[in-house]
């Protein structure tokens, strides 16, 4: 006779729960409701104790911290430690952004998330013609190591984990982070954080590409290989569904296309000769959270289960850490409206709750004024407070995967998983994600979903409060933050000052070496670290690579 669920539960406690608690104990204030009723960390199905039901439960859900991780990647989840509250921030130049980071850390934020401006993301220096008007606008402008030193001034890199939203020039910014660490006396092996480094979704949805897919994938896997040796605590990729969702996809498309991207990265790394269990544990994910709370919770659960199965069964990974889908969540910016901006606070609260109920590892909550421009300090603080209220007051952190077993949630989880798996199968048939992108398959699917969604709004079949119903005549707009022209000038001045004082022969030497190596199949990461140390700029390094790899141009209607 098969073991009962109770027996399996006891085994899980001994095998998974207790070692975890020994490492990070549960917090005493998360073990009872506000009325004093004790709450368990984990609830299991009751009252249908036959073998088939037990087996079905174990296959579909299992225990948190164990395959297939439907219920979460850690056995205690937030009972021991809240998710990382990580507000994406950056604007103007490094000085201004450094000030904002220090403010956020003082306010109780537990990790940093760097937003770079568009010229940095596309590999143009601040004085490039195409950077006109864009310097410091959607993030901080970084040209050389000198900027990065200012950005992390008085922020100890051995204590704070940093997420960097950077893709095409990911190597350059990671190299700068390593170099800043060196200057602070923190070795690369002790650095923690995440680099987005997800190029495929740039072609699908986000648009900040530089190089064609082939060279881009090479750079991605170069980072995998480098970090596997030297940066064991750093997440080397954040495979991103967020931007796919923001472009208008459905929940199942978000999961399907993101995991298909993940599969392409594993394939690329395997063909570069890496061992799956060496890099897969350092892969992380990034999803959006919409306001449709139940579907979102189901989506996160489905993504975990599907990914675990893929990595274990398709790629034969042995290390359980390879199977875990760990993810960051950001509330979806496209749901914010310029009309009645205070409504955005409510939307963000629901979206954040969905992420927490879905078991996110870290969370960014949007500020209410982001449909109008950059968030003010006050608005960012309110967004952070939203997370803190959910963490400390709502009680949802007391129990792992609290919505499990809900008929609705379980059914939705199955549906999202099935639909996402069908997308992955279709992409496999097309010869993988790179081929599918070339044929515009994911782009077209997303566009159709987006069009449908917008049509529903236009036809009032879908209500957006304050926009197509309950609209008001007069809309009061709050103050918003403006990037000062002074910051732009300061940035350009600093760049020319750095160019003046650095050893230009060293810059030329490191750039020539890099360009040569780009023509071979060498790992470019160590060479980029050298160039960065010599204060070569983001634009100069990317130009060296452009000369070898060419540039990607893709425009569809």
């Amino acid at each position, binding site marked *: 006779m098969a073991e009962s669920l109770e027996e399996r539960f006891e085994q899980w406690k001994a095998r998974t729960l207790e070692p975890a608690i020994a490492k990070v104990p549960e917090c005493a204030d998360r073990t009872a409701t506000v009325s004093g009723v004790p709450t368990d960390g984990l609830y299991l199905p009751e009252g249908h104790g036959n073998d088939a039901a037990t087996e079905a439960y174990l296959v579909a859900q299992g225990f948190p911290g164990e395959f297939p991780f439907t219920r979460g990647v850690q056995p205690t989840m937030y009972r021991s430690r809240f998710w990382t509250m990580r507000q994406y921030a950056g604007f103007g130049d490094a000085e201004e952004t450094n000030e904002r980071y220090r403010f956020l850390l003082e306010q109780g934020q537990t990790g940093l998330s760097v937003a770079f401006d568009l010229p940095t993301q596309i590999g143009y220096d601040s004085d490039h013609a*195409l950077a006109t008007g864009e310097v410091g606008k*959607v993030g901080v402008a970084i040209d050389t190591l000198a900027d990065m030193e200012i950005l992390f001034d008085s922020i100890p890199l051995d204590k704070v984990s940093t997420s960097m939203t950077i893709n095409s020039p990911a190597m350059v910014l990671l190299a700068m982070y390593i170099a800043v660490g060196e200057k602070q006396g923190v070795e690369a092996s002790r650095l923690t954080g995440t680099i987005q480094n997800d190029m495929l979704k740039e072609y699908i949805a986000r648009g900040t590409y530089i190089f064609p897919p082939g060279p881009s994938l090479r750079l991605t896997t170069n980072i995998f290989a480098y970090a596997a040796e030297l940066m064991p605590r750093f997440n080397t990729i954040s495979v991103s569904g967020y931007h796919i969702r923001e472009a208008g996809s459905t929940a199942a498309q978000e999961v399907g296309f993101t995991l298909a991207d993940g599969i392409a990265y594993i394939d690329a790394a395997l063909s570069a000769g890496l061992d799956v269990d060496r890099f897969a544990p350092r892969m992380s994910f990034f999803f959006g959270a919409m306001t449709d709370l139940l579907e979102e919770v189901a989506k996160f659960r489905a993504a975990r289960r599907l990914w675990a199965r893929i990595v274990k069964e398709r790629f034969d990974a042995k290390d359980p850490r390879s199977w875990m889908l760990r993810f960051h969540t950001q509330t979806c910016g496209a749901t914010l*409206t310029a009309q009645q901006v205070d409504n955005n606070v409510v939307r963000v609260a629901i979206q954040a709750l969905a992420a927490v109920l879905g078991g996110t590892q870290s969370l960014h909550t949007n500020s209410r004024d982001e449909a109008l421009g950059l968030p003010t300090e006050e608005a960012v603080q309110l967004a952070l407070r939203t997370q803190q209220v959910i963490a400390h007051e709502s009680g949802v952190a007391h129990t792992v995967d609290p919505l499990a077993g809900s008929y609705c949630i379980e059914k939705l989880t199955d549906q999202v998983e099935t639909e996402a798996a069908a997308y992955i199968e279709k992409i496999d048939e097309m010869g993988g994600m790179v081929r599918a992108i070339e044929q515009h398959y994911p782009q077209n699917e997303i566009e159709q979903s987006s069009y449908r969604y917008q049509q529903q709004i236009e036809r009032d079949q879908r209500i957006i409060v304050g926009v197509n119903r309950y609209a008001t005549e007069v809309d009061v707009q709050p103050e918003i933050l403006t990037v000062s022209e002074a910051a732009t000038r300061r940035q350009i001045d600093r760049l020319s000052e750095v160019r003046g004082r650095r050893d230009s022969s060293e810059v030329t030497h490191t750039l020539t070496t890099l360009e040569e190596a780009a023509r071979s199949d060498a790992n470019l990461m160590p060479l980029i670290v050298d160039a960065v140390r010599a204060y070569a700029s983001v634009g100069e390094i990317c130009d060296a690579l452009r000369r070898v790899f060419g540039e990607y141009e893709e425009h569809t209607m």
Partner: protein
Amino acid sequence: MRKLDQAGQQDLTSCTVDAHPPKRILIGKVGLDGHDRGAKFLIRALRDAGYEVIYTGIRRTPEQIVQTAIDEDVDVIGLSLLSGAHNQLFARVAELLKEEGVEDVVLLAGGTIPEKDVPYLEALGFRHVFTPGAPVSEILSALQQELSSRE
């Protein structure tokens, strides 16, 4: 020439005489942001409303936008930008149009544009400024008004 709009025409032939050819619109994305969800929705809606739409794709310079608008002889230019660089880049488009002596084109602006920038853009010649959440019906009716007032 006789009018062709009697019933029974359409099933035989879809040919029409271009007494009133469709208006031509250029939708352009200046600057570096890749957020084209709104622009892509809009171009379809404009097509369905009977306009001929030319879309530039992302990451275009003001020079590319203006030259394209001239070559395609469009009636309307709609610019979209979400990074906040509108004051500089939209101004540059307006300036180039002036330099080229193009004065009869309707200019529209869209994107994450704070209210306080609207007067500046209007002074540059932008007839309407649309922000996130603006329904397409609003854009279409503004457009129709602009075009009919010019006829």
